[in-house]
């Protein structure tokens, strides 16, 4: 086991899969000599050559569309969207095409494609480099979606995603890249797509979260321990498929649910989590389902003050857990 950052884990997973499987290749803007804007693919061009590390033109629809074609022809492309905010031009290819290729061809073709993109705020990325896009895609059957929060999960899920026979949208919270360090097993391992992680066991309140907010939720839970409030934090890790079982099991124990995400509240992932619990575990609940989320404004602004006002903090999360525990 070695201690790594999330960024290093993403790089290592890409590197290992490129080395293992000649069908895997990377395409995206500035992934070549520059080694990606976060330096994730630094050195890859020299090692794997320009056929497998392709610096694309500035055109996201084609980054995904070309990757889809290559996937249909038997390759395992990893397409990079430089920032999640720039994924919109590729929406047609992801939602209209990739997600439907297997279904529409009745299994004649498959689309083993990974689309990686850094998302989320807290890095002074301003209005167009801070977005959370999970709620814009998680409604789409045919896609899978991963949102790792720890170095080990980033590695294991990315390897799973590359080996998966279906398209996977792989969202990397950019604030976690260098902030979050953790132990990562040596050698080849995977984390299964579709399994949530109990990041902190507890018995009083279930807190469902993912991405950067998983860490804030754990921090909040730790803060409350001295008060005698024992929160269980679940890190979804995968949003589609959603691990209902882990959530329901937890709620059956705690009888209280708080969902936390940085993304805006209205129509966010928390809505579905709440709906699942209100439908399938209603009689387990002793209190209303609460959500702590980003505000329903168009974006996170550039000024530090906007970021702070937008992003749920460990303090806000702790306050919500406390309130819910006493409800």
């Amino acid at each position, binding site marked *: 086991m070695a201690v790594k950052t999330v960024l290093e884990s993403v790089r290592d997973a890409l590197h290992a899969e490129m080395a293992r499987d000649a069908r895997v*290749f990377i395409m995206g803007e500035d992934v070549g000599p520059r080694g990606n804007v976060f330096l994730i693919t630094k050195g890859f061009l020299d090692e794997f050559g320009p*056929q*497998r590390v392709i610096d*694309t*033109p500035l*055109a996201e*629809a*084609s980054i*995904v*569309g*070309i*990757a*889809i*074609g*290559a*996937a*249909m*022809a*038997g*390759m395992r*492309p990893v397409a990079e969207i430089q920032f999640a905010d720039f994924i919109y*031009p590729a929406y*047609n*290819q992801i939602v*209209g*095409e990739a997600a*439907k*290729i*297997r*279904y*529409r*061809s*009745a*299994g*004649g*073709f*498959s689309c083993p494609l990974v689309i990686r993109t850094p998302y989320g705020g807290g890095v002074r990325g301003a209005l167009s480099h801070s977005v959370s896009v999970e709620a814009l895609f998680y409604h789409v*059957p*045919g896609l*899978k979606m991963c949102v790792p929060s720890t170095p080990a999960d980033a590695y294991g899920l990315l390897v799973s995603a590359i080996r*998966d*026979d*279906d398209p996977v949208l792989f969202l990397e919270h950019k604030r976690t890249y260098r902030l979050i360090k953790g132990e990562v097993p040596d050698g080849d391992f995977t984390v299964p797509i*579709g399994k949530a992680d109990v990041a902190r066991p507890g018995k009083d309140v279930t807190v469902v979260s993912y991405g950067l907010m998983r860490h804030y939720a754990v921090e909040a839970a730790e803060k409350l321990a001295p008060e005698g409030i024992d929160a269980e934090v679940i890190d979804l890790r995968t949003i*589609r*498929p959603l691990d209902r079982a882990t959530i329901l099991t937890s709620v059956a124990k705690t009888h209280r649910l708080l969902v936390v995400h940085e993304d805006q509240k209205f129509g966010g992932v928390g809505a579905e989590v709440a709906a699942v619990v209100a439908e399938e575990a209603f009689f387990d609940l002793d209190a209303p389902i609460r959500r702590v989320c980003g505000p329903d404004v168009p974006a996170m602004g550039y000024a530090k003050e906007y970021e702070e006002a937008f992003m749920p903090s460990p303090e806000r999360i702790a306050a919500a857990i406390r309130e819910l525990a006493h409800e």
Partner: protein
Amino acid sequence: MASEPKVRVSLPEGLTADALREMYYRMVLTRLCDERAFALNRQGKIPFAASCKGHEAAQVGTAYAIRRGTDWVVPYYRDTALALALGVTPREQMLCLFARKADLFSAGRQFPNHYSVPDRHIATISSIIAAHITHGVGMALAFRMRREPVVTVVCFGEGATSEGEWHEALNFAGIHKLPVVFVCENNEFAISVPQRLQMAIPNVADRAAGYGFSGVICDGTDPITTYTIVREAVERARAGGGPTLVEAKCYRAMSHTTDDNQLTYRTPEEIEALAARDPIPRFERWLRERGLLGQDDAAELRRKAQAEVDEATDWAEAQPPPAEEDLYTHVYASGPLS
């Protein structure tokens, strides 16, 4: 079927007399399939059909220009003749028209003519115009990466060239000199929108210069011209010469689909005048002049094709539709999730 011609004529390179007759047959077969589809729609038996009448020569010429079993085609929804020329059978065609469970292309999920036939190297497409063009480029990229001598042909209408993705696809193909041939079947209309409202230029082919490769115009109502020009482009691509944009000028004889009525935007005279450009009698004449088709051959081929289409129609109609549980297949490799 005529025996080998008495008088030796010089045939287009790479085509035997049999192949030429086969091309003719596929054009006729397509025409009859299309007519049957429209008839079935009028009878209320199928809710939707689209015809490639006026495009048959361009499509059959393209189909014969590639190496079958090696090269790949990413067609669009008007490529019935292309598909039939690549080996899609009338039965398969009818299964998709009737949306039967056994429909090879989509198990009755997609509109008709959305081919997807891996074993005949035809890629899946959606109805979203131009979305398939980058796929063809990506396939070409994959073949090149694996050093396979495969060329990918991507077809689309002139309307599709307005989509941003069209531009992105051609741009990438040009930069990387990929083994891909773009075939634009220019029929001058996108549903009701005429070419002059689609682009400010007369020839789609002229745009190729902006991507660093050549654009060629051909008479898409003549299968031999189309064949010759596409073949040259395909072999150039295979030899590492990069992409070509071929513009096959053809026309759309019928309304856009059975849901459309072209009389709302085209005069009856305009539509009637199109008949003079019909590729089938024209190709028939060409074959006759070269002794490749005898006195009664055309009529006989037509009868044979009609019989095939009739048989296929009856057979397909009798096949079972999808069942409720078929809704849930092929969502993911591992089955449905939720």
